[in-house]
């Protein structure tokens, strides 16, 4: 059989699974630079960090939104971009960025956030990259106003294109961003359900290697229960699929002190190891105020790896009903249609799913959540979702100041300035 160029690319999923079996947490940055030389330097530094790493090529926001003209203008005028414009640089440039990396066994994942990823998928495949992330809900609702039904159609095509590579000897990998919706103030039951539903969507399109995300929230015990629920649901719903769980270091307002920032990162690494996740997306100390440098990314990768080495796997999570809540949501969505994509569109239309504080026109906007006195996320309103609001949670209408208070919760706690 003739092996296509794709076959030379290392399998992202297999590489992570191998490290997981060896008991080592894979750590990954969220790095993206417009300049090819700097992008390459970032990938080399990631590879050479003192940690088990995979590389990241984060795409800029113009490319993410399909405004390739704006990305080109910015490149021509030498203006800064917030990521690597993969569809503008062209395959030769991107292959040069990746030379001796992907083809030498160092996996690189393309991260973008696009509800209509066609051009990005084209560009990454042309450059020999086969691992990316996204999803019809998670890359649509939090990021703009593309109608959900259109995003589902775009992501069907994207998943189909990736799955087709499997016939050419490659093992493409797709990660769902469903466990990260809006980054904060979304109760874990819904995050877990969306992560699994998008994983099922990918599997239904024929993909054999996927990962399921979960973003660290405000309470370590609740997060541990969520990661366990995610793994249990994935095992039940994704038979025969190579899957792993990826934890995201807290995505909301980050501590300002170096001590606070490294404590949040260490907590995320601990969560990943104790919860049985295979991969961790790190965050740097600079993240809160600007796009971090290569050196800051490497420092975060190495700090996360050190924290992971100190943690012990196999923690027994408590059971507060988080699995059952996620299970109810998954079941209610699956009842709506055999096709998971169609079911997801109907679920939002019928208020079966409702992401709190998401301003997208297709989100029902009837649910709400809050951080309780116990530090956990609680539903304060569930809209039409088939779950119950937490009776213990105080239901108070959100104000500008209570929103800021909730959004800055982790910063206050980890910077040690919580006076409540």
């Amino acid at each position, binding site marked *: 059989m003739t092996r296509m160029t794709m076959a030379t690319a290392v399998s992202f999923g297999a590489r992570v699974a191998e490290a997981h079996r060896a008991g080592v947490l894979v750590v990954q940055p969220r790095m993206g630079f417009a300049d090819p030389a700097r992008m390459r330097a970032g990938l080399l530094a990631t590879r050479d960090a003192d940690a088990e790493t995979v590389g990241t090529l984060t795409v800029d926001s113009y490319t993410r939104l399909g*405004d390739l003209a704006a990305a080109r203008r910015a490149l021509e005028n030498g203006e800064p971009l917030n990521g690597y414009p993969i569809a503008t640089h062209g395959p030769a440039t991107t292959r040069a960025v990746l030379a001796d990396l992907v083809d030498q066994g160092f996996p690189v994942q393309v991260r973008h956030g696009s509800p209509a990823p066609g051009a990005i998928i084209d560009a990454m495949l042309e450059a020999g990259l086969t691992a990316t992330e996204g999803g019809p809900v998670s890359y649509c609702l939090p990021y703009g106003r593309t109608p959900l039904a259109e995003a589902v159609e775009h992501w069907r095509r994207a998943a189909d294109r990736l799955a087709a590579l499997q016939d050419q000897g490659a093992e493409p990998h797709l990660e769902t961003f469903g466990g990260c919706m809006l980054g904060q103030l979304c109760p874990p039951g819904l995050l877990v359900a969306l992560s699994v539903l998008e994983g099922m969507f990918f599997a239904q399109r024929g993909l054999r290697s996927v990962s399921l995300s979960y973003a660290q929230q405000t309470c370590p015990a609740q997060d541990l229960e969520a990661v366990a629920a995610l793994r249990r649901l994935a095992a039940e719903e994704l038979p025969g699929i190579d899957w792993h769980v990826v934890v995201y270091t807290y995505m909301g307002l980050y501590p300002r002190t170096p001590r606070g920032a490294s404590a949040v990162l260490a907590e995320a690494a601990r969560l990943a190891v104790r919860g049985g996740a295979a991969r961790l997306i790190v965050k740097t100390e600079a993240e809160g105020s600007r796009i971090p440098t290569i050196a800051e990314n490497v420092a975060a990768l190495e700090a996360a790896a050190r924290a992971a080495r100190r943690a012990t796997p196999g923690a027994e999570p408590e059971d507060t009903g988080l699995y059952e809540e996620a299970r109810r949501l998954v079941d209610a969505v699956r009842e709506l249609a055999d096709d998971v994509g169609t079911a997801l569109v109907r679920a939002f239309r019928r208020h079966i799913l409702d992401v709190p504080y998401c*301003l997208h026109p297709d989100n029902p906007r009837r649910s709400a959540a809050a951080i309780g006195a116990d530090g956990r996320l609680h539903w304060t309103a569930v809209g039409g979702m088939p779950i119950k609001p937490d009776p213990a949670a105080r239901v108070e209408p959100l104000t*500008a100041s209570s929103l800021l208070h909730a959004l800055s919760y982790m910063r206050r706690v980890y910077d040690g300035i919580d006076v409540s």
Partner: protein
Amino acid sequence: MADATRRIPPLRTVVTGVASDAHTWNLLYLQLLLQELGHQVTNLGACVPEDLLAEHCLAERPDLVVVGTVNGHGVRDGLRLIAALRARRELARLPVVIGGRLTTDGRTTPAQVRRLLDAGFAAVFDGDAEITEFCLFVSALAMRHAAVP
């Protein structure tokens, strides 16, 4: 005494992100803040194309447009946005303000602020600390509206 207790009529405001910015927490915060100051808010959300914003303003004729952005493309996208609004004669005098984190390095230069003001923004609020200035601006605008017979 009657004057002192007279309510300032609410402003009809539009909160919006810029075309390339997907962040929404900042927009939700601005919505709640304006509502608590007593004003009406239509929140257009993230990634609003300039034309959609212009069409909305032509249809609804708001008293104030508040542009919030934190992804670092704010200066460039803001200039595009204000040009699209000012291109419509009916919107030539509509007050439009912009704030948040406007550049990728987190520092907006005086020259960049000047460009935004020259292009037609009524005010530029750079960084968290300027929220008070923003509230003062909104209150002053509401008072001016109330003073117009």
